[in-house]
């Protein structure tokens, strides 16, 4: 039986120790751990534990958009094949098997996306990206390994300056890159070829929720007629449908610690980019137009 | 008898050859003596030639089937001969009862009717269209007598032509009574200076193209006119010059509608005329006018061109890829100047049918050692991604900021706008006009539809060569189109680099005429 603090520490442990693990994977592994430890001994109890585990992981100081969607999908996936007639042990094994399957699939999805997206990077192109996204990083590395010559512009992306980490990672792999301030997006837009960003969540409308500043970048790209590509795994698909920026749930926008206080003066962490500004989404389900996302979402969740 | 149409014939002051003058005299004699048939002997080819349709100097609709090989002197005589013959034969009986004058009128009518029938019969027989040279004079006096019969047969075609082979949207632009103006039907008016006649022919055949070129040609013809002008007795220099000018300009307008540059230049010239000091001698007036014309050309065209070139050259940097469309003398000058200044850039020349003016531009650019590429306008989206700037010339700038230019310019500007490339329109201020237009229909020019159909590059000929046989098929050849101001980033004039919306400011600043 895992206590709440154990869950939390397990989760944070994974994230601290391993560098290249995304938040979704860490959350899923935590949930797997909960299943492994058993707990109350009933299936219902296990499901309850999972739910609570999800809440706990969402309450840490990591952006909860990715966690929410991936955990939700995971939970639905593993509980779908449970039969009431099986014993608890059997159920647990089934859940663990499917869980592992899910995890493997998740790990493989990045490779699929790499293959699809690197076709679009050609020699001599100039790419703009926002903040730090592992998928985008891997794609760019893949393209560099294919001996393509290209240039990358990364935004600093306040307030946590994660863009700088991206810049350093790119430099390690000998990719030509430049760090620009967030305010310089409009200036640089006319000279680049396309924009490539990751996503924390993909919503029902076909839009994305991503680090604050993505919406501005999408607006600017649309005004200058540049393609805006989103690279994301299918675990990030969520059943949300925000109507505008204000309609995003608070738990997406603000860290849990701040949520208790006065939110009107807080800086949000993420913003919503409507589908009309997105050209294509590269996912492990294939290259999708924003209108195809809803179709895929329904298929995923039903 | 020799062909009147040959260039060697002498033409007198009133535009008639000796023979014609004689014939004229004969006719006046005949009108008093109907029964004299001796004139018949003077004619060598009676009834063998179709009565020519005397055309007045207003370019009335001429039925091609009624044109004859140019034996006009004999034809002219033939008309009179026929009339006189008919009157002789048919009305000899009546001559006793009715007076000569009235006989002639009745007889004339009958003769005219007979002449019409004759003409129609001959019309079916004859095939070739007359090539009327500049030197072939048309007798205006003749035309008055024989005009009534000639009007009857052309009517047949008039009834057919208005709706046939005309695009309804541009109905107002088709010239009345004409479908296509061609050099073949060029008419000569003896009252017009040969320089203007020549200019009219050049406009008609489209050998002078481009608004600067046309304006300069007109001004040079004007200078010749001033030089040769002799004030008629008892008339004032300026007034008579103005009236002569008016007839000449009307003639030019019938050849081809005026360009905005020409209209503006003409208006300025008329202003000069009013400003001239009346105390000067004629000679002094002439030289003063000529000087002012030269000054106008120098200021408004030459120096303006240099100023614009300097401005634009500041915007051209090394490694630029500049896109241009068609032919513009100003753009050519700008690019040559930039090349001389040592800038390294490349030019992409886009071209549009059917004029294909871009080829001439290409030739001149290559001679100036500029690296060029050449494409047709359908490939504009293919190249636009690489382009850094678009330079366009203009025929005129309208008061609402819209740019009137060669057909195809609006499209290039549209695509450049969608690719977010800067579009610069270069235009001298003398081409600015107070007219406003929002689309390309209200005011435009329709050119020869056959040019659309002729294909010069491929081995096979066009499928449309027989378009005239099919009533449902019409090729359309527009000369101009209008570019909305939101497609244009900046207009470069000799005064300043302006946004398109500031055109009325310039119009306000120009001297009031």
């Amino acid at each position, binding site marked *: 039986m895992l206590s709440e603090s154990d869950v939390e520490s397990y989760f944070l442990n994974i994230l601290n120790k391993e560098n290249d693990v995304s938040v979704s994977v860490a959350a899923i592994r935590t949930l797997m751990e909960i299943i492994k430890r058993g707990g109350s001994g009933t299936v219902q109890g296990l499901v309850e534990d999972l739910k609570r585990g999800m809440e706990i992981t969402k309450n840490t100081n990591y952006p909860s958009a990715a966690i929410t969607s991936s955990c939700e999908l995971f939970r*639905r*996936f593993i509980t779908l094949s449970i039969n009431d007639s099986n014993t608890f042990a059997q159920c647990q094994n089934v859940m663990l098997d499917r869980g592992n399957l899910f995890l493997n699939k998740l790990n493989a999805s990045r490779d699929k996306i790499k293959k699809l997206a690197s076709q*679009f990077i050609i020699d001599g192109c100039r790419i703009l990206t926002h903040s730090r996204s592992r998928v985008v990083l891997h794609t760019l590395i893949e393209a560099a390994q294919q001996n393509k010559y290209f240039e990358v512009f990364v935004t600093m992306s306040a307030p946590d300056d994660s863009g700088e980490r991206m810049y350093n990672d790119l430099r390690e792999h000998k990719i030509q890159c430049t760090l620009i301030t967030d305010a310089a997006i409009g200036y640089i837009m006319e000279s680049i070829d396309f924009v490539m960003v990751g996503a924390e969540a993909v919503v029902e409308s076909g839009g994305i929720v991503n680090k604050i500043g993505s919406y501005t970048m999408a607006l600017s790209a649309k005004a200058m007629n540049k393609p805006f590509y989103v690279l994301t795994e299918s675990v990030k698909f969520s059943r949300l449908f925000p109507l505008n920026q204000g309609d995003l749930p608070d738990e997406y926008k603000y860290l849990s610690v701040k949520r208790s206080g006065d939110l009107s003066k807080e800086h949000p962490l993420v913003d919503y980019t409507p589908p009309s500004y997105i050209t294509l989404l590269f996912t492990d389900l294939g290259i999708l137009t924003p209108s195809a996302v809803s179709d895929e979402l329904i298929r995923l969740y039903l | 008898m020799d062909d009147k149409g040959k260039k060697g014939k002498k033409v007198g002051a009133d535009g008639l050859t000796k023979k014609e003058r004689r014939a004229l005299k004969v006719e006046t004699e005949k009108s008093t003596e109907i029964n004299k048939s001796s004139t018949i002997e003077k004619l060598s080819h009676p009834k063998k030639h179709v009565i020519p349709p005397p055309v007045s100097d207003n370019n009335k609709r001429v039925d091609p089937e009624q044109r004859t090989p140019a034996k006009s002197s004999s034809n002219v005589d033939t008309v009179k001969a026929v009339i006189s013959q008919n009157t002789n034969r048919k009305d000899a009986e009546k001559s006793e009862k009715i007076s000569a004058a009235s006989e002639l009128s009745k007889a004339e009518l009958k003769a005219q009717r007979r002449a019409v029938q004759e003409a129609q019969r001959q019309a079916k027989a004859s095939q070739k269209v007359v090539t009327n040279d500049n030197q072939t004079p048309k007798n205006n006096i003749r035309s008055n007598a024989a005009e009534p019969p000639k009007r009857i047969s052309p009517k047949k075609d008039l009834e057919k032509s208005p709706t046939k082979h005309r695009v309804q949207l541009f109905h107002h632009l088709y010239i009345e009574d004409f479908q296509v103006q061609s050099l073949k039907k060029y008419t000569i008016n003896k009252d017009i200076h040969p320089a203007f006649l020549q200019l009219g022919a050049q406009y008609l055949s489209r050998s002078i193209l481009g608004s600067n070129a046309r304006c300069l040609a007109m001004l040079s013809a004007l200078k010749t006119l001033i030089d040769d002008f002799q004030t008629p007795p008892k008339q004032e220099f300026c007034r008579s010059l103005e009236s002569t000018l008016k007839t000449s300009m009307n003639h030019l307008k019938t050849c081809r509608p005026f360009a905005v540059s020409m209209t503006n230049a003409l208006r300025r010239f008329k202003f000069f005329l009013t400003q001239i000091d009346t105390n000067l001698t004629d000679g002094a007036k002439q030289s003063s006018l000529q000087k002012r014309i030269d000054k106008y050309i120098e200021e408004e065209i030459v120096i303006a061109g240099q100023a614009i070139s300097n401005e634009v050259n500041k915007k051209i940097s090394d490694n630029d890829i500049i896109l241009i469309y068609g032919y513009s003398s100003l753009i050519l000058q700008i690019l040559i100047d930039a090349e001389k200044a040592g800038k390294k850039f490349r030019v992409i020349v886009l071209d549009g049918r059917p004029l294909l003016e871009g080829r001439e531009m290409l030739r001149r650019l290559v001679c100036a050692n500029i690296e060029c590429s050449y494409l047709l306008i359908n490939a504009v989206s293919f190249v636009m991604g690489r382009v850094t700037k678009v330079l366009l010339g203009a025929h005129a700038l309208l008061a609402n900021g819209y740019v009137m230019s060669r057909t195809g310019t609006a499209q290039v500007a549209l695509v450049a706008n969608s690719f977010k490339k800067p579009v610069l329109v270069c235009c001298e201020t003398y081409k600015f006009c107070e007219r406003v237009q929002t689309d390309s229909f209200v005011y435009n020019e329709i050119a020869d539809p056959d040019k659309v159909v002729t294909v010069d590059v491929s081995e096979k000929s066009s499928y449309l060569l027989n378009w005239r046989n099919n009533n449902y098929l019409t090729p359309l050849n527009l000369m101009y189109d209008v570019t909305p101001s939101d497609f244009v980033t900046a207009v470069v004039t000799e005064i300043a680099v302006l946004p398109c919306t500031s055109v009325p400011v310039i119009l306000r600043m120009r001297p009031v005429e």
Partner: protein
Amino acid sequence: MLEMELYSDVIKLISDIRHSKLHNSYDIAIHTEKLIEKLISEGKWNSAEDLMTLIKLRITRFANALPQEATSVNIMRHILKIIRDEYDSGFKNKGEGQQSAHHLGSTTMDDCEDYSKVLPSLKSSLLDNLAEYKVELESSADNIAAQALEHIHANEIILTVGKSSTVEKFLKYAAKSRKFQVVVVEAAPRFLGHLMASNLAKNNIETTVIPDSAVFAMMSRVNKVIIGTHTVLANGGLRAESGVHMVALAAKHYSIPIMVLAHMYKLSPMHLCSSEQDAFNICASPADVLPYSSGPLLDKVHVYNPVFDYVPPELVTLFISHQGGNAPSYVYRLLSELYHPDDQEL
């Protein structure tokens, strides 16, 4: 040599296309269908997998030889889907049959789906299916034309570019009962617009021919733009004749709807990867643009004659296929119905 024998049918098809013996995409479609039919009835194969391998090899061969010609490849892909469906229904394999949440997990398991079991009735059911498909192909143009009256009303001015036999049929069908005018853009340098105009005029449709440069000038009075296309891309964009993009931009400027008549075999799962259009476009002979008579000018100048144009999906209003009209945003769905996802990357 063995290879040559193996692919001789595809090689013949490729050479026919190259030598312009097959002009229309319709002709190519019919020939491809015949080729596959022959392969199924006479070829050496036992199981569905063998057959699919044979077809896949032909697809690769064809795509390598003529990368821009998508019609044949699309038809072969569709036939692959027919084979898969027949096989599945033959074995009633997917009892649970959901492509659902299992999607995430299931695709890893069923990635290499086993098609190697021998199904005796496969051949006959395939041939039946193909016969149906052939009828569908042949009647496709007529079906599209039959929708003409829904889209064209009286006294309209319709603009079209170059020559498309589908558009011609469409307009002729509408002309039987409605009176309208057509403006044909001549589409230099191939001048197919001239042929289209003369064909339309023979059917007593009021036609005006304009050169490419006059499109923007005419566009404000046009009511609709109806065009054909060479290929429809996966994002709903078009690979169409050169010059269509500028027509589409002009129509967008005046908010005029653009209708694209496209047969199903023109839908391709391809995406436009780069704005440079390297693998997307081909250039034809520059002599059509600048004739050899220009003399010494020729070696000092670069002349280009691109054949295709990319039209982005936001410029297209409607796709009309034999099944009816669709928005460009729905193309992804049509694609998933036409082709199996595993075949999309061949």
